């Protein structure tokens, strides 16, 4: 790992101030980086993908609580670990979709260190992003994309661009997208809230930007709305081995049922796009319909309506359709998990 300087922030304000001016440098390799759990950042620094000159350690900040919100929701402090979130009794009881998604990701060791704020900011596991000998527009804007014509089995089929076909690797974020969470951030210009669907970006012409967070902004917490879909939900993750592997395709599905009729629906996919892929149009198609496989199949086809396969990943289009149908069946209680 390259040399860098290190400071420990003792307040959010001090952290933001320390990073002031960082915004202009861009996301591809900012010279100052905040560090939380660091499970992805340290790995990327070892691989020489990220080369910060300075790390600002946020882990001593008082952002480690999960608290009740007046609207009946929960606020997850940005520094709560993924493990403490998934095993929190309130999260497990009221947001089991989130707990299930978190526990589907990484390993126990990583979940003990990785933070909720950091989970949102983890980078793609595209092989070419990690390999500094290859072209990658995300790592080095303008250098090209070796994945598009290369080994792209794990890559995206939705929302891709000619610059980048990387996927977002998080499981937790797929559940947060389905639950319509809100991200609270603090920067030099003050506090702001970002709706989860607006937090991550599609690659477009600027695949170096994963999110709409500015380089001098700190995530302070994540708000979960009161509705947690605790009765009818599933997180279905399909991967190459039964545990400790990234999703080829994952589906967060949640339903509200009145008898057999769907009155509310949430549907988000992981492993298929540069961001957690929530499809609100598809959700609306489910509302008012009976919770049956006949309802689910056309919706599944609809979600993949604009999908584009590459040499090795076209199988994901069919896989995702089947996974959506299966996940909705599980959420409706038609199939066991």
């Amino acid at each position, binding site marked *: 790992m390259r040399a860098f300087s290190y400071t420990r922030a003792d307040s959010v304000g001090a952290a933001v101030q320390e990073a002031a001016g960082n915004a202009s440098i861009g996301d*591809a390799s900012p010279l100052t980086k905040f560090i939380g759990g660091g499970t992805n950042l340290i790995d990327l620094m070892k691989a020489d993908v990220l080369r910060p000159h300075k790390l600002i350690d946020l882990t001593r900040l008082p952002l480690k609580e999960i608290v009740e919100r007046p609207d009946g929701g929960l606020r997850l402090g940005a520094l709560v670990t993924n493990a403490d979130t998934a095993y929190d009794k309130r999260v497990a009881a009221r947001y089991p979709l989130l707990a299930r998604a978190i526990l589907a990701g990484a390993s126990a060791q990583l979940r003990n*260190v990785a933070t909720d704020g950091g989970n949102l900011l983890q980078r793609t596991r595209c092989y070419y992003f990690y390999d500094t000998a290859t072209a990658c527009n995300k790592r080095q804007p303008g250098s090209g994309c070796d994945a598009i014509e290369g080994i792209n089995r794990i890559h995206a089929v939705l929302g891709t661009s000619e610059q980048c076909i990387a996927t977002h690797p998080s499981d937790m974020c797929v559940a947060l997208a389905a639950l319509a969470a809100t991200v609270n951030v603090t920067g030099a210009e003050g506090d702001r809230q970002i709706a989860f669907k607006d937090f991550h970006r599609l690659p477009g012409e600027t695949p170096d930007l994963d999110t709409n967070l500015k380089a001098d902004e700190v995530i302070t917490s994540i708000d979960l709305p009161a509705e947690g879909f605790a009765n009818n939900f599933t997180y279905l993750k399909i991967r190459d081995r039964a545990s400790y592997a990234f999703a080829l395709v994952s589906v967060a599905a949640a339903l509200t049922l009145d008898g057999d009729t769907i009155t509310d629906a949430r549907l988000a996919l992981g492993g298929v796009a540069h961001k957690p892929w929530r499809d609100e149009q598809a959700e609306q198609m489910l509302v008012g319909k009976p919770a049956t496989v006949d309802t689910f199949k056309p919706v599944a086809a609809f979600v993949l309506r604009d999908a584009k396969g590459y040499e090795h990943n076209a199988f994901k289009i069919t896989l995702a359709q089947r996974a959506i149908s299966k996940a909705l069946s599980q959420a409706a209680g038609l199939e066991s998990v």
Partner: protein
Amino acid sequence: MPAATPVPAAIASQSITLTINGQPQQLDVQPWTVLLDLLRNELDLTGTKKGCDHGQCGACTVLVDGNRVNSCLLLAVMQDGREITTIEGLATGGVIHPLQEAFIEHDAFQCGYCTPGQICSGVGLIREGHAKTADDVRELMSGNLCRCGCYPNIVKAVDDVRISEGDPK
């Protein structure tokens, strides 16, 4: 990334205090030293193994304040004030830990390279108290790879101690 990344000028080592296997130690560390390298290279605690060095294999698993973690992905400087337990620190009064005993009893290793990490991970798993079945143990040990394929006996060893020690919570 920047075309030329100048090396930052003279970055001072930082003084930290770690309690390692019960012994408080004051240490000067460079910011980029990971806990694994501090343990092995500076403190001669070579029981903790370097496998992948990328958080994928679990060979470097140690306990920080009782929680199992991958020491290859932790900056030592960020652990200031914490308690670190490695495989060398699990025995008490010359008696090896029940999970070490169970690994011997169940023949839960062949080459032994992953074993310190497996045992530290198993100790952490039992302390966490979330595993209720052998299937849970298998899932919650998935962060520790064993290229000899001793998984069935590793699961038996961890599950035995889990059952005999009960849920600590």
